[in-house]
C-alpha cells in the first residue's frame, strides 16, 4: 500500500514534469497557436475592402500602411487581453473572471466620454477649463488613463489587494459608479454618444504602426514579468492561507499582478475599444486542452487571445466587405459559440 511502484513510463513523464518542461502537448499547442497566428496574419494581409486578394504586389502600399499594422495590432491586442484574462482568473480563482472586472472597462469608457465631451458642448463652457488638456491627450490617452484610474480607484477603495473578495466588490462598485457618471455626462453632451458607441463595440480599423508600437511595448513589458511571477498564481490555487504558509507575501504579489493586469488591459482597451470575451475565453480554451501551471498558462492564453482577436478582425473585414462588422460583436459570437460547445460537452460527460 505504501510503496506502490509506478510504471517506468509514468516515471518518465514525472521526470519531464518536474524539470518544468511542459509536456509535449503543451508545446504542440504553442506550435499550433503560432501557426494559426501566422495564417491569420497572412489572411489579414489578403483581406482587403475588395474581398480576398493575393495580389500583394499591386496592393503593396495598402498592405504596408493599413493591413499589416492592423493585423499585427489585432494580434498584439488580443495577446494582451488573453494574458490579462488569465491573470484575472488566476488572481480571483474564478473561471468567470475577465480583465474588465476591476473597473478598467468603466474607467476607460468614462475617459472616452470625458474626452469627447471636452471637445464638444463643454468646450465652450468656461466652467470646464481643466478639460482642455483632455483634448490634447486624445481618445487613446484618455481611455488609457481612465482604465488605470478605474483600477486605482478600486484598489484605493478596497485598501490594497489584500482581500480578493473585497477587491472584486469594490471593482463592481467602481464600475457602476463610473458607468453612471458616464451616462450623466452623455445627457449633457449628446454628441459624445456616437463616439462612445463606437468605443463600446470595439474597432481595429485604425490600428497603425504607432499603435502597434504601444501594444507591442506593453506586451514586451507585461508578458515576461507575468510569467516570471506565475508561480505565485499556482500557489494561490491552494488557497490564501496555504499560499501564505509557503512563504509568499501575498498582498504585495497580488498588487503587482493587479498592476500588470491593469497595464495590459488599459493598453489594449485604449487602442481597440472594449472588445469582450477574448480575456474570458482564451484561458479556458488553453486549460481545456492542456493542464499546465501558470507560467505556461499565461503565455499560452496570450497566444490564444491573439489568435482569437486576429481571427475576429479578419472576419470583421471580410464577411460583408467593403462594410465592416464591429469586432466586439464577432469576438462575442466566436467566444459564445465556443462556450456553448464546451458546456454541451461537459453535459454529455467527458
Amino acid at each position, binding site marked *: 500500500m505504501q510503496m506502490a511502484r509506478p510504471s517506468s513510463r509514468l516515471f518518465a513523464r514525472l521526470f519531464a514534469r518536474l524539470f518544468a518542461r511542459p509536456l509535449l502537448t503543451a508545446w504542440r499547442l504553442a506550435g499550433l497557436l503560432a501557426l494559426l497566428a501566422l495564417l491569420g496574419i497572412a489572411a489579414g494581409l489578403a483581406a482587403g475592402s475588395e474581398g480576398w486578394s493575393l495580389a500583394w504586389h499591386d496592393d503593396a502600399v*495598402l498592405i504596408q500602411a*493599413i493591413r499589416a499594422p492592423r493585423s499585427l495590432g489585432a494580434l498584439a491586442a488580443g495577446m494582451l487581453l488573453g494574458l490579462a484574462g488569465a491573470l484575472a482568473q488566476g488572481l480571483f480563482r474564478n473561471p468567470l473572471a475577465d480583465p474588465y472586472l476591476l473597473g478598467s472597462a468603466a474607467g476607460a469608457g468614462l475617459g472616452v466620454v470625458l474626452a469627447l465631451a471636452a*471637445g464638444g458642448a463643454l468646450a465652450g463652457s468656461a466652467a470646464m477649463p481643466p478639460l482642455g488638456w483632455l483634448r490634447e491627450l486624445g481618445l487613446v490617452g484618455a481611455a488609457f488613463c481612465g482604465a488605470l484610474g478605474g483600477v486605482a480607484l478600486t484598489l484605493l477603495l478596497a485598501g490594497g489587494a489584500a482581500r480578493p473578495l473585497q477587491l472584486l466588490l469594490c471593482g463592481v462598485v467602481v464600475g457602476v459608479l463610473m458607468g453612471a457618471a458616464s451616462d450623466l455626462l452623455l445627457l449633457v453632451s449628446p454628441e459624445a454618444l456616437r463616439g462612445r458607441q463606437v468605443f463600446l463595440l470595439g474597432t481595429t480599423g485604425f490600428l*497603425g504602426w504607432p499603435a502597434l508600437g504601444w501594444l507591442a511595448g506593453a506586451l514586451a513589458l507585461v508578458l515576461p514579468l507575468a510569467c516570471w511571477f506565475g508561480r505565485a498564481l499556482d500557489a494561490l490555487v491552494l488557497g490564501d492561507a496555504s499560499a501564505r504558509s509557503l512563504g509568499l507575501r501575498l498582498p504585495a504579489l497580488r498588487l503587482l499582478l493587479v498592476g500588470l493586469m491593469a497595464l495590459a488591459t488599459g493598453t489594449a482597451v485604449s487602442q481597440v475599444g472594449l472588445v469582450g470575451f477574448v480575456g474570458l475565453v482564451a484561458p479556458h480554451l488553453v486549460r481545456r486542452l492542456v493542464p499546465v501551471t501558470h507560467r505556461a498558462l499565461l503565455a499560452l492564453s496570450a497566444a490564444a487571445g491573439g489568435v482569437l482577436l486576429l481571427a475576429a478582425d479578419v472576419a470583421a473585414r471580410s464577411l460583408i466587405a467593403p*462594410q465592416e462588422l*464591429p469586432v466586439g460583436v464577432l469576438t462575442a459570437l466566436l467566444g459564445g459559440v465556443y462556450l456553448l460547445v464546451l458546456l454541451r460537452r461537459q453535459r454529455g460527460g467527458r
Partner: protein
Amino acid sequence: MGRLLMLLVLLAALAAAPLRAQPAATVVGDSGRAVTVVDDRGRAIPVPQPVRRVVALLPSLTEAVCALDACDRLVGVDRFSNWPPQVQALPRLGGLEDTTIERLVALQPDLVLAATSSRALARLEALGLRVLALEPRNLADTRRVLELLAQALGRPGAGERLWARIDQRLSDAAGRVPPALRGQTVYFEVASAPYAAGEASFVGEVLTRLQLGNVVPAAMGPFPQLNPEFVVRAQPGIVMASARGLAEMPARPGWKALAALQAGRSCGFSEAQYDLLVRPGPRLADGAELIASCLARLGGRPK
C-alpha cells in the same frame, strides 16, 4: 376598456406596418371642426382646430413648426431642440428616451408631436393627449411632413409653399458649387469607426441635389461602417466630416494617401453645423448652403 382598445389598435397598427416603409402620413379629411391626419404609424388622428398649444419632442419637428410660422404656439420642446433661439426659453421635456410625462401633461397641449421611436407615445395617448408620431428620414419625408403639419396646424398649403422655397434654395446652392467640383465624389464621415453617410441617407440625398457623387452607393445602406481601406481605394474628391474627425484623419494609417486630404479639399464642420446637416427638417436648405459655401471656398484650389 377604451385604453386597452387603443393599445391593441396601436399594437395592431405597429404589427401591420412593415419596418422601413411606413404608410405615408396623409391628410384624410376636413370635417370643419377637426382635421384628420394619418401619422407615420398609420393611425388616423383627428386634430380639432384651432390648435393653440403644441409640444414638439423632436428637433426637426420643432424647427418645422417654427418654419411654418407657428412658433408662438409651441409650449414645450425636447432637450435637444435648439433652433430657433426663442425655443430655448421653453420648458424642456427630456430626450427621446426620458420624456417628462408629468411636466408635459401639465402644459395641457392640444397637440403633441413626437418621433415614432419615442417610448412615450403609448403613455401620452393613454393620458388622453393627441399625439402625432412623425419621423422624417429623407427629403421626400420632409416634404410630406411639412405639409401634413401645415394641415394639422390649420394652415393648409403652407407646407408646400415652404417646400418650394427650400427647393429653390437647394437649386441655388447647387448653382454655387464651383464647376470644377461638380460631380466629384464625396466621403461624408458620420462617426469615426468609420461610419459614412451613403447615398441612401438624408445627407446623401442633399449631396445628390448639389450634384455631388458619393463614394458609398445606395446599396450599402444609409450609414454603413466601412473598412478604412475602402475609403483609401475610393479616393474621394472631397472629404467632409466633423472638424475634430478631419483633424485626426491624416494620422490614420494609410489615409495620408488620400489626394483630397493632401490637396486640402475637405470641409470640417463644427458640432452645431453638423446638427444642421444631419437633421431632416426645414433647415436642410441651410445645411446645403453650408456645404455649398465650403465648396465655393475650395473652388479656387487646383485639383
